[in-house]
């Protein structure tokens, strides 16, 4: 990218990761919503890790728990009713959930930052964008107003907002959708986070602008070496930018692997269904193949494999192998081939055709 500003030099050098392992590790995270009508299990023991410079896509349909897990990491769950019922979130080797509120707050921004789906509602309507970007510096580093504004202009340049110096005093509603998302990105990147969580960053944008924003995120990631968690239901976006993908269903990760592997040879019937539901040029004129049925009610997740009521391969009773009854036995997330994990009793059959 062609950023000409002195921004990089004005921020402290990237702190070395104290532990050599992944920057962010989520271990067996459980989140539930305790409502009057019972407990809704939104996230049921997910684990993943993100390395420096890596892009992990979390893919799933609405209600699969992908956004809730991100909100748990950011500490912005609405609680009550949401409760983190178990698990750990290790950032650079330290468990965020065990820190006190002030330590957690200091990690948000410089450590982990987040961009939201709808940038217009995620920006405060009463402040100019320059003021909001600059607030990151004022709040976390105690920078003066004037300097913070200068940083804001540099950042707006960096996310390729044209005429940044002139638009720094404009208000969010004066920007187009794509430009607003760039402002959001500029805010998130202000303090050089080690991890950026992008919660459906392009869903509210039209297709050409989507591509620009994803390109921008990729370039920025290359420059800063941050880890990127991309939460989306857009298979095209995943295919373009992600290194690894984790597919979520009913609050669980049901398959992980590199994007190429998962997209070309899915090891879980749900992923197969997802891939079949993409419109194909070759199949023009034919019918799309949807996944039949409805996503499960998270207050009453089906027994055994949560996907079994919709699964064309589900086996039960006499047809099932011992301890691999789809209706009774919950399939663990297990290694199926090198670098691939899937939560299906019969992944091998899928993989080997």
């Amino acid at each position, binding site marked *: 990218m*062609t*950023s*000409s*500003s002195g921004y990089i030099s004005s921020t402290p050098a990237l702190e070395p990761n104290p532990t050599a392992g992944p920057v962010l590790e989520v271990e067996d995270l459980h989140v539930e919503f305790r409502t009057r009508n019972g407990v809704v299990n939104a996230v049921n023991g997910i684990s993943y890790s993100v390395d420096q410079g890596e892009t992990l896509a979390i893919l799933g349909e609405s209600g699969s728990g992908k956004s809730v897990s991100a*909100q748990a990491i*950011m*500490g*912005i769950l*609405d609680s009550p009713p949401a409760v983190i019922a178990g698990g750990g979130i290790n950032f650079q080797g330290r468990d965020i959930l065990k820190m006190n509120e002030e330590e957690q*707050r*200091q*990690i*948000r*921004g*410089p450590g982990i*930052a*987040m961009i*939201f789906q*709808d940038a217009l*509602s*995620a*920006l*405060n*309507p*009463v*402040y100019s964008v320059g003021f909001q970007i600059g*607030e*990151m510096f004022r*709040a*976390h580093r105690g920078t003066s107003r004037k300097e913070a504004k200068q940083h804001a202009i540099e950042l707006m*340049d960096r996310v*390729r907002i*044209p*005429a*940044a*110096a*002139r*638009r720094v005093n*404009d*208000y969010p*509603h*004066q*920007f*187009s*959708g*794509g*430009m607003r998302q760039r402002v*959001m990105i500029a*805010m*998130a990147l202000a303090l050089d986070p080690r991890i950026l969580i992008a919660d459906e960053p392009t869903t509210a944008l*039209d297709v*050409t*602008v989507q591509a*620009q924003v994803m390109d921008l995120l990729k370039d920025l990631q290359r420059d800063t070496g941050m880890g990127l968690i991309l939460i989306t239901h857009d298979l095209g976006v995943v295919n373009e930018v992600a290194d690894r993908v984790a597919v979520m269903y009913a609050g669980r990760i049901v398959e992980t692997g590199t994007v190429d592997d998962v997209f070309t040879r899915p090891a879980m019937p749900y992923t197969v269904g997802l891939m079949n539901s993409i419109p194909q040029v070759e199949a023009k004129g034919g019918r799309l193949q949807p996944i039949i049925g409805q996503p499960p009610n998270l207050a009453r997740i089906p027994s055994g494999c949560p996907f079994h009521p919709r699964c064309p391969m589900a086996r039960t009773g006499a047809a099932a192998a011992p301890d691999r009854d789809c209706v009774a036995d919950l399939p663990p997330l297990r290694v199926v081939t090198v670098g691939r994990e899937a939560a299906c009793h019969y992944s091998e059959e899928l993989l080997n055709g």
Partner: protein
Amino acid sequence: MTDQQQEQSLDPAQIEVDVRTGLGAPSADVTEGRQNSLWSDAWGQLRRNPLFWIGSFLGVFFVLMAIFPSWFARGADPRACSLTESKQPPSSAHWMGFDQQGCDYLANVVYGARTSLTIGLLSVIGVLLLGVIIGAVAGYYGGIADSLLARLTDIFFALPLILGALILLRVGPSTGLPILSDRGAGAVAIALSAFGWMTAMRLVRSQVIAVKSQDYVAAARAMGASNFRILTRHILPNAVAPVLVYSTITVGVLIAAEATLTYLGVGLQRPAISWGLQIENGQSLLRTAPHLVLFPSIILSLTVMAFIMLGDALRDALDPRQRS
């Protein structure tokens, strides 16, 4: 508007800026003068509202009267009295005549504006302070804090403003507290704020609850903003519009309440000059010198009306659904 459209219309000054920033993606600022914010919309609406102009004309007039009473008193001193002029009716030299003590009544009414406006503004500030702080805490933290504060508000709501203020001012001198015991403008303002903050609290509380769930509040938290910063920088500025309207109307109501308290004999005491005192003194002479009640009442009504009209106009302007 898409980014492409922005890039199509070029403007030389713009290109220059972009060359300097090294980005080479010139765009003209097509948004200028086309899109409106809440406040610029509101101003456009206000400008066309006669209520606003009448209200602000009267408001400015009375505020000037409070700050520079000598401009309006036609050279008369409210305290230079001569009993020979007692209860003289209005004349061309003395537009409002004389009171029982033979003081120029116009000068007295004019000098009363300062007391009334001071008390009105001081008590509205008190009402806002109490209402915003209690309402914001209750709305933002919710839970037990909210339940306790909401019940406290209900208790105060059960006490009528005038009755509560009357009792507080009656026992005020015996408490020995600094401002409350001297029965001046400060004491009246404290009494009025202490029993007048509840509506402001409920307004702020409901606004804060509504704004709290906005995405930008979650975003601010995700960026590491502290509770105090979120509340003061992100929630309150978005919650003030209705409170502002309410407080404008309340200035008028509180000025009238001050006159009522003074009339009932618990507010200001002579030698203070206030419209309430003038009405109180004039009432016994209503049959012989009706102008002593009439003039301060008219001026009091006009002042109260000015603020209520301003508040009404502001409310209409800030509420898009009220626009025709």
